[in-house]
């Protein structure tokens, strides 16, 4: 059955229309969870507000379990689902640069659009920065394509790399997430909060 677009159950235009609908859900949930506020987002790095950690890991686990169960029920063919390829060097270096951007700017790309949609001017400026950053990467591509393409490992799953089945890895990740949620609840009590 799924993925619907790849199995040509729905047309390309229907797929794009559903992208818009799914985007509305994405933006709505982000804003409802408080991801339109940069101070709320940055709170996770200081312990005063850990909403990012809770929403992010709950979402990853929900989707991961959903995909594993959908596959078990025969509702989706996981072989047709895109698995992000792993280029080791750029995954690390890109992540480090993004992490620096996150603590400086207080947003990530998705949340900045969410913030801008309710009128946060700092989010508009952050988005301006995003375009500049992507443009710089584009015009200087030849300077860093070596790093961009280095250490290509294919599209391995982390469960394969660790020698575990998907189910066992998922179980361990859930245990880890629960431990992190416990620490997060503790941190929010320990560090003072204010309304913003």
């Amino acid at each position, binding site marked *: 059955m799924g993925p619907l677009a790849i199995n040509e159950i729905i047309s390309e235009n229907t797929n794009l229309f559903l992208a818009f609908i799914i985007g509305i859900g994405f933006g709505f949930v982000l804003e409802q969870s408080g991801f339109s506020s940069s101070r709320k987002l940055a709170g996770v790095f200081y312990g005063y507000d850990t909403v990012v950690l809770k929403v992010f890991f709950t979402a990853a686990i929900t989707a991961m379990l959903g995909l594993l169960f959908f596959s078990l029920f025969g509702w989706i063919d996981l072989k047709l689902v895109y698995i992000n390829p792993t280029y080791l060097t750029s995954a690390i270096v*890109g992540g480090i640069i993004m992490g620096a951007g996150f603590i400086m700017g207080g947003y990530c790309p998705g949340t900045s659009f969410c913030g801008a949609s309710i009128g*946060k001017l700092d989010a508009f400026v952050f988005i301006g920065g995003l375009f500049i950053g992507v443009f710089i990467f584009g015009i200087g591509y030849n300077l860093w394509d070596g790093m961009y393409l280095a250490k290509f490992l294919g599209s391995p799953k982390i469960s394969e790399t660790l020698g575990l089945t998907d189910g066992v890895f998922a179980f361990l990740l859930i245990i880890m997430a629960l431990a992190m949620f416990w620490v997060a609840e503790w941190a929010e009590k320990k560090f003072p909060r204010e309304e913003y």
Partner: protein
Amino acid sequence: MVKSKETKKTKYLNPYLGGVLLGIVLLAANFVAGRGLGASGAIKSTVVTAMTTVAPSSAEKSGFVKEFRESHTGNPMKTWLVFEMLGVIVGGFLSGAFAGRLKFKVEHSPKITSRKRLLLALGGGVLFGFGSQLGRGCTSGSALSGMAVLSLGGFITMMAIFGTAYVLAYFFRKNWI
């Protein structure tokens, strides 16, 4: 009619419930399109369009544009992530409207000026934009969506993003606390 102050400030959703809902949205994306959510991909589409429109001859020689074309056919603006991001703007606006949070403002710690906040937002945006290209996706496309499909790279990028932000948090504390 006078509205009380309480109605102005609507509380946010419970984070665990928000997470489950976001997970269902991500699951829906995978079920419908066979791919996860994203954000920076839509910006890349826009930048590629701008480059090929403003300077077509030099853009076609650019490795960046070539690399984009290898994975996308047709109009770069007619892609899944562009439509999804248009939805994000609508969805965020609707949520803000229902919750009474629509307001033009610069959000910053009382310890810094709006001007400093905006400069840092610009710098952060430039870094995030650049990093999202190098890392083949941002927090949504690489980290969150990658983790849902158990991508090794997704987990690595997630740890690099959050690890770096934690390491640097001390130096930027005045901007937030």
